[in-house]
């Protein structure tokens, strides 16, 4: 196989369309929850009457619809419209149009918030982009469910799934490199600082006493973030890696008082690692479970 053939094959390597459908559904739900999460901020951070009446990014060339939407009513309408688009994406109704609208929403609010954004916003913006350019297929849509059309899942080009997988690996590689340069991560104190900060759900000086817990959690998280990209790409360890990675994010969601959206935003990346075989196994198990429960 020539080099150019290999480059082309990776792009068009067929993938089960259910893999895209699963990412689309979950991402749509998370984008909708994120809009609900931002709802209370719409007047104070997005309208002209708010705290700072310009976009906080300060970059005039950013594509942000909030430049044109200054009144409270216009901002509220755009929130409602974007929420509806996120739901349409989830249900697979005009999914490409919905995916474009959700991506424009992600870019617009990120540009508006500027330095008030964090990892969840970046992750959602990147995945919105990747979903927008991916084949969306036609399975697991509301129309499919209502018409009960049992056509076998089609094979579609796999480039979107490949990019989503690379993206998740890049996130962990980058964060590991950055954290290794930090003194607090190297000496095992990062967890104590986190648990005593405004992000913690249970702030207590006891976390400063339990140095062993901080060392274990800091090094454990660092080791996991280092290993995840490798474990996810090896088929035999993939499911274990998904379990460990999602558990890590669930732990962050449980121990923090305000980082639930960040933990949720990482889930679509993990789901992109499920391929046709694993999805079929999961569907078989679900059917078996339903049959045994009904009987």
């Amino acid at each position, binding site marked *: 196989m020539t080099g150019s053939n290999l480059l*082309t094959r990776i792009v068009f390597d067929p993938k089960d369309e259910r893999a895209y459908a699963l990412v689309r559904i979950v991402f749509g739900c998370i984008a909708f929850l994120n809009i609900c999460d931002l709802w209370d901020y719409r007047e104070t951070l997005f309208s002209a009457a708010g705290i700072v009446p310009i976009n906080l990014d300060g970059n005039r060339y950013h594509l942000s619809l909030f430049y044109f939407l200054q009144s409270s009513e216009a901002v509220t309408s755009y929130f409602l419209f974007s929420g509806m688009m996120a739901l349409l994406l989830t249900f697979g109704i005009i999914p*490409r149009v919905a995916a474009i609208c959700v991506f424009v929403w992600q870019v617009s609010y990120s540009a508006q918030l500027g330095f008030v954004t964090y*990892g969840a916003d970046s992750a959602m913006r990147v995945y919105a982009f990747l979903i927008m350019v991916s084949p969306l297929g*036609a399975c697991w849509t509301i129309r499919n469910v209502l018409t009960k059309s049992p056509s076998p899942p089609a094979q579609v080009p796999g480039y979107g799934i490949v*990019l989503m997988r690379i993206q998740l690996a890049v996130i962990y590689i980058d964060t590991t490199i950055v*954290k290794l340069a930090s003194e607090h991560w190297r000496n095992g104190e990062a967890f104590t600082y986190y648990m005593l900060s405004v992000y913690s759900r249970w702030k207590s*000086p006891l976390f400063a006493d339990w140095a062993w817990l901080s060392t274990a959690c800091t090094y454990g998280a660092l080791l996991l973030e280092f290993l995840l990209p490798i474990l996810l790409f090896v088929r035999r360890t993939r499911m274990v890696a998904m379990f460990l990675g999602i558990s890590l994010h669930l732990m962050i969601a449980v121990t923090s008082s305000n980082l639930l959206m960040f933990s949720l935003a990482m889930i679509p990346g993990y789901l992109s690692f499920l391929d046709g075989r694993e999805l079929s196994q999961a569907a078989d198990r679900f059917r078996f479970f339903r049959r045994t429960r009904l009987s």
Partner: protein
Amino acid sequence: MAWKTEDPIDRCISTLCSNPLAHKVFAGGLVVCFWTYALAMATTSLDRVASLEPLRAPLKLVHQVTRTSQSWGMFHTVPEQSEFNVLIHTGFKEPGGGGLVLSETLGPILPGFQKFNSRRQLRYFQLFQQMLSRDSYQQYRTQYYQQLSAALLQRNGELENPPTHFMLELVVTKTVTPEEIRTLRSAPSHSEKVGPLLIGSK
């Protein structure tokens, strides 16, 4: 390869690509875009590992064009604030350049001067923590003071003796080091004050 869809945009692309030449051009474009984006993603961390700036600059452009610029620190700088609050005090300035004679204490959120909870309302914490403390956000700070001043002027418009000045108070509880927390059993709190600033001034 099947790529069935109900979406109008996808239907449009399928129609355009029904011509074999257009199909080839589309497929070729897709391959180029895929590898450019994949390379741009894969090189996100390069400048942290080695100095490969000549390669990095054009690939960074890809992220800017696609609006997907990336940096994945995720708590690489440990959070040091244990509590964070901002209060707005309004009042009259003492004659002879003294402090502020308080008339009212308000929250910093506009509109409505609401107070916020730094643990529950992460965006407000991030906004005030960065805007009020970093030199690089001076322009936003100035704009916020102007916005605040205008809102106070509007709020106090019907009062007989409206307050003339306002002051910002940042109440920050900071985790100094875990050793100090072990000794003190709580994080020490301190406050910084900005002002008094004249209401209605630019």
